[in-house]
């Protein structure tokens, strides 16, 4: 009997066995390895944050004068003084300066028309969000699927995304939405708290050159810290302990992608 060449039906069995073996090994190794590392983490986390701010940022003893900052000199200037009344051509006695009583008017009642206005506004907003073509998003997902972002981790990415976005309020008034796209390298502790969060070199450079990007980096950092700890499946910690890049990209929401 001649030996048949292995069919495609045999290969997956072998592959599957190998895969199971190694995944089990990886999980076992990482669980064993990281248990020690992260037992201590929750305590160490809060401390460095406070230490950094005192040592690096403030660096003063109590009652010391504030660290030298740019000084903004403000003196009384003419624009501040109330302007005198105009000189009129007609020879009339100069009228008294009338400073109107500053009445705070009650909030205008919400009429049916204003309600409509509000609805119109909402409709408008909803409309705006519809504009990006649906297929663009799908295409993104496929591209992301290449490499580390595959079917195995897509659910983790979605889980993290859904927890971060609630806290994310970027400065959407920027004239150029692309300035607001920022990348971070996020390391997470096993309890879902932030171990470290660093903007990518590219985002750091952009932030130092562009005030909108700097504000975007700050907003993303606030979001990431504020919404921690992240609830992610503990048994898959190895897959989510590092998120790189953690990208914040409001372009689609701003309707310019």
């Amino acid at each position, binding site marked *: 009997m001649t030996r048949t060449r*292995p069919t495609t039906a045999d290969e997956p069995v*072998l592959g599957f066995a*190998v895969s199971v073996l*190694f995944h089990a*090994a*990886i999980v076992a*190794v990482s669980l064993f390895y990281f248990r020690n590392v992260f037992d201590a983490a929750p305590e160490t986390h809060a401390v460095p944050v*406070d230490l950094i701010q005192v040592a690096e*940022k403030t660096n003063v003893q109590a*009652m010391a004068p*504030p660290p030298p*900052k*740019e000084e903004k*000199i*403000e*003196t009384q*200037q*003419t*624009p*501040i003084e*109330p*302007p*005198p*009344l105009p*000189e*009129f051509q007609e020879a009339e006695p100069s*009228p008294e*300066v009338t400073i*109107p*009583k*500053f009445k*705070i*008017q009650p909030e*205008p009642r919400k009429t049916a028309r204003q309600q409509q206005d509000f609805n*119109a506004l909402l409709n408008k907003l909803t409309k705006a969000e519809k504009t990006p073509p649906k297929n663009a998003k799908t295409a993104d997902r496929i591209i*992301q699927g290449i490499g580390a*972002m595959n079917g195995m981790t897509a659910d*983790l990415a979605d889980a993290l*995304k859904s927890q*971060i976005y609630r806290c*994310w*309020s970027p*400065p*959407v008034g*920027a*004239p150029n939405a692309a300035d607001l796209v920022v990348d971070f390298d996020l390391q997470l502790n096993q309890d879902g708290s932030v171990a470290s969060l660093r903007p990518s070199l590219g985002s750091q450079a952009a932030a130092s050159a*562009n*005030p*909108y990007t700097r504000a975007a980096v*700050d907003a993303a*950092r*606030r979001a990431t*810290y*504020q919404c921690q700890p992240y609830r992610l499946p503990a048994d898959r910690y190895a*897959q989510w302990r*590092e*998120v790189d890049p*953690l*990208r914040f*990209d409001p372009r689609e929401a701003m309707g310019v992608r």
Partner: protein
Amino acid sequence: MKKLIAILIAFLALAAPAQAALQVDVTTPNPQPLPIAIPEFVPTTPAEAQAGANIASVIRADLERSGLFKPIDPKAYVDKITNPNVAPQLANWRVINAQALVTGAVLTQPDGLLRAEFRLWDVYGGSQMIGQRVWASPNDWRRIAHKISDMIYEAVTGEKGYFDTRIVFISESGPAIKRVKRLAIMDEDGANPIFLTRGDYLVLTPRFNPTAQMIAYMSYIGTKPRVYLFDIETGRQEMLGNFPNMTFSPRFSPDGNKVVMSLENAGNSDIFLMDLRSRAVTRLTTDPAIDTAPSFSPDGRQIIFESDRGGAQQIYVMNADGTGQRRVSFGSGRNSTPVWSPRGDMIAFTKQDKGRFNICVMRPDGTGERVITSGWQDEGPTWAPNGRVLMFTRSAQGGRGSEIWSVDVTGRNERRVLTPGNASDPAWSPLITNGGS
């Protein structure tokens, strides 16, 4: 075959410990006002206690009004800042969900000026974002507060603030048949309103020059409406040019050296440019239709204006010398009163469509039109100096009189600007700068 498996094993063994990092794209922002705590500024002597409280209170009001911040009620604070020169216990501010904290002190300088020092803290990031000193005459404590608001706004949003600015507008009083319209000016927050004219003559369309020292406006002094200049510092007003017919709709060039305006002649109005130093006048349009409401681009190279040369009012653009005139608004309805954003990226205008007046924006080439507000009569937009917020005149049906409203360029945060009585025709000043020192 065995070799292949061996290579695969080796590859997996290498790859497995260096677990590839997860990639996450966060694409859906949740725009919310930033919760910020602004405790009273700590006084150095009891005499400054009131100033410390007042300054903090004005900063809170400024930031709240912008719609981008949510100042936390001081009653909710669990910590008290007693020494602003040491790092605050940020954990105590996290408890009340503050994302930013402003700590500050006030003191009286030896020269009698009031000085405020403040720091803005990133409560979750654990760092100081900015720290600055601002000083001025004690009477100008509101301006100190506005300056600080501007710096906080800029640190958080990346764009310049607009709190240390003023609004010139037309204050309206009296019964509808005998309406008194006076030129008036106030701070951006509605404080310090002052009438500049007494109301003997009708005044319309006031506009600031780039230093906020001069106002161009139209007034019916004598028999014909004409453009006048008003110097805020001296209170002196003068007629701009001596034209046989009416002049109206003035606006300064970005360098402040020229005024562009409409000049009417036998029912036809065209746009003219006057050099304020030489008083030389250049004609920019010659069309038999009504050309008016000119507004310069921030670089001074182009002028956007309205014209009914195509039948109904639409928006056109031309070079600053009058060449290259072309229509840019092709949306529905009639489009008028275009104003170029100080940032250059947008044109705000009034759209009259289906019986409503709307405030809209579009790009300078006419694309990307968006309705920002819609009302029975919303008209005459003016830009904040950062190109982020608009003010406009709103009149409701039923003759309640006109009011000034503000709205973010995203269409959010529509608010009434508090004025003494009815008001219309607002014009936003540039950021107030200090000439000297």
